[in-house]
C-alpha cells in the first residue's frame, strides 16, 4: 500500500467531516483512527474507492466517539443521522485546513505539529520521533493546538504567508527519524500549490526542490558537512533542479516578487553553475539586494556580504560585513572566510575558532573547527 497516497487523502476526508458538522478536534481524531485502520485492512482488502472508504470509516468513528459522551453533552440530535455526502469541495477544504493548522494564534511548534498530523496524516508517534520529544509531550502539544483553534471558523479566509512559514519550518528542520520531514514538506507544499494559485507558494516549492536536489551532496559519508563550493555537482538531482527552475520561472513571470521567489532565484543560480567557479555571483548579489529590500533581514545582509566577496573580491566583502552587527549568528564564520580569501590566515584561523565556539549545531561546529585546524597547520608548517 502506498502510504503517501493514503496520507494525501487526509485533508479532504477531514474537510468532509468538518463540513458535515463534526467539530475539528473530534473529526481529526476520527480521521487518524481511520488512517490506522486503513493501514491494517487495505493490504489484504484494498477498497475500490479509497477516499469513500476513509470518509465512511472516519464518520463512523466520529459518531461512535461522540455518542459515547452524547448523554453528557446532549448532542444526540446533532449526530444521530448521517447526512448525505455534500458536494466534493476537496480542494477548498484542503486549503482551509492549511489555514486552520497555521492559524496565527498557534505557536510555531504547535502549528508545525498540527499541520503534520491534520494535513499530513502523520501519527503522533511519527511526529514525536521526528522532533525527538516523547510521544506524550507531542500528544499534548497537538491536543492543545486543537483546543487553541477550536473557536476558529473553518470557512474563515486565512493568510497564505503564515502557512508558508510553517511549511518552511518543516522543511528546514534538520532532525531525521522515521519520517523524512524535507520530503514531507515538499509533498505538503505541492499539495498547497495545487489548491491555491499564488506565486509565493510556487516560490517556496521551487526553493525546496532546489535545495532538496543537493541533499545527497551536502554530507560526506562520515556525516560531515560539505560546503556548496566543494560539493560533487554530479550528485545533484537534475530532475528536481529542472522542476524547481521551471516552477520558479513561471512564478517570476507573474511579476509579484516575494521573499521565497527571491531565495529560490539564488538557489537556482547556484544550481545552474556547472562548477563553483562559474557561479554568477554578480546576479546573486542583485538577488540578495532584492531580498534585503523585501525582508530587511540582517541574515540576508550577512549572506549578501559573502556574495559580494565572491563578486567583487574579499576586501569588498569585508567592507559590506563591516556595516553589520558583529553579534549576528555566523558573523565570525563569514569574516573568517573573507579573511582567508584575503590572505590573512592568522585572523581567519582565530575567527574560525571563534565561530566554531558559537556554532548552533554540531556539524557546523565540526566543520568550522576543521577550517581553523587546517589554517593553523598550514601556518605552522
Amino acid at each position: 500500500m502506498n502510504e503517501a497516497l493514503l496520507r494525501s487523502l487526509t485533508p479532504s476526508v477531514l474537510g468532509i467531516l468538518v463540513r458535515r458538522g463534526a467539530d475539528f478536534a473530534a473529526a481529526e481524531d476520527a480521521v487518524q483512527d481511520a488512517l490506522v485502520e486503513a493501514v491494517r485492512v487495505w493490504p489484504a482488502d484494498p477498497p475500490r474507492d479509497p477516499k469513500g472508504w476513509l470518509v465512511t470509516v472516519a464518520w463512523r468513528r466520529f459518531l461512535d466517539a461522540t455518542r459515547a459522551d452524547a448523554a453528557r453533552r446532549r448532542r444526540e440530535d446533532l449526530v444521530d443521522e448521517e447526512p448525505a455526502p455534500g458536494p466534493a469541495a476537496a480542494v477548498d477544504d484542503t486549503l482551509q485546513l492549511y489555514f486552520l493548522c497555521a492559524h496565527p494564534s498557534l505557536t510555531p511548534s504547535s502549528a508545525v505539529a498540527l499541520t503534520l498530523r491534520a494535513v499530513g496524516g502523520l501519527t503522533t508517534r511519527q511526529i514525536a520521533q521526528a522532533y525527538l520529544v516523547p510521544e506524550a509531550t507531542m500528544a499534548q502539544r497537538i491536543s492543545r493546538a486543537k483546543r487553541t483553534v477550536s473557536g476558529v471558523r473553518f470557512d474563515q479566509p486565512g493568510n497564505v504567508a503564515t502557512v508558508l512559514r510553517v511549511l518552511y519550518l518543516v522543511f528546514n528542520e534538520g532532525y531525521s527519524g522515521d519520517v523524512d520531514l524535507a520530503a514531507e514538506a515538499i509533498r505538503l507544499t505541492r499539495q498547497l500549490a495545487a489548491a491555491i494559485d499564488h506565486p509565493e507558494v510556487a516560490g517556496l516549492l521551487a526553493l525546496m526542490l532546489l535545495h532538496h536536489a543537493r541533499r545527497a551532496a551536502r554530507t560526506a559519508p562520515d556525516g560531515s558537512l560539505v560546503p556548496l563550493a566543494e560539493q560533487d555537482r554530479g550528485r545533484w538531482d537534475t530532475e528536481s533542479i529542472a522542476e524547481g527552475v521551471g516552477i520558479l520561472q513561471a512564478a517570476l513571470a507573474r511579476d509579484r516578487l516575494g521573499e521565497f521567489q527571491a531565495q529560490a532565484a539564488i538557489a537556482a543560480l547556484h544550481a545552474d553553475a556547472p562548477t563553483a567557479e562559474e557561479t554568477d555571483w554578480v546576479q546573486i548579489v542583485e538577488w540578495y539586494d532584492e531580498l534585503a529590500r523585501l525582508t530587511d533581514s540582517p541574515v540576508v545582509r550577512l549572506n549578501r556580504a559573502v556574495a559580494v566577496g565572491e563578486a567583487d573580491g574579499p576586501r569588498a566583502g569585508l567592507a559590506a560585513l563591516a556595516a553589520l552587527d558583529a553579534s549576528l549568528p555566523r558573523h565570525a564564520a563569514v569574516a573568517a572566510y573573507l579573511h582567508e580569501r584575503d590572505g590573512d590566515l592568522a585572523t581567519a584561523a582565530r575567527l574560525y575558532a571563534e565561530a566554531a565556539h558559537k556554532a548552533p549545531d554540531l556539524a557546523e561546529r565540526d566543520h568550522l573547527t576543521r577550517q581553523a585546524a587546517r589554517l593553523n597547520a598550514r601556518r605552522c608548517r
Partner: protein
Amino acid sequence: MAKYLLLKHYRGAPTAVNDVPMDQWTPEEISAHVQYMNDFAARLEKTGEFVDGQALAPEGTFVRYDGEGRPPVTDGPFAETKDLIAGWMVIDVDSYERAVELAGELSAAPGAGGKPIHEWLEVRPFLACPPTITE
C-alpha cells in the same frame, strides 16, 4: 522549537538566596519541594514542552582508557570538585525567552521555610542539526 538543558548544580553555581542544605529542612518542606518539581514536569508535559528530567547521585567516578588490553583506570570520587551536577530537565520550546521563563519558575521551587530557594539554574541550548537552507 529548540531544546534546552536546565542544569541544576550541587556545587559550582552561584549561591542561592534561600541557601539551606536540604537535610536541614522539615520533612514537609522536602515533600512540598518534590511535589513542586513533579507538578512542574507534569505541567510541561501538558504544554507539550517536556522532553526529559533526571536526578543524579552526588558521587561519581572518573574513568579513562588505559591502553590496549588493560582495564580502564578509575579515580575519585573527589570530595572537592568545584562543579557538581545534581540533575537536569530537558525542554523543547519555541524561544530562548521561554526557556529562561521556565528556568525561573523551576528556580522558585520551595525550600526551607516553604520559601522559594531562588537557586541558580544553568540554561544551555542543545547543538541542533544543521538547517537545510543556509545560503
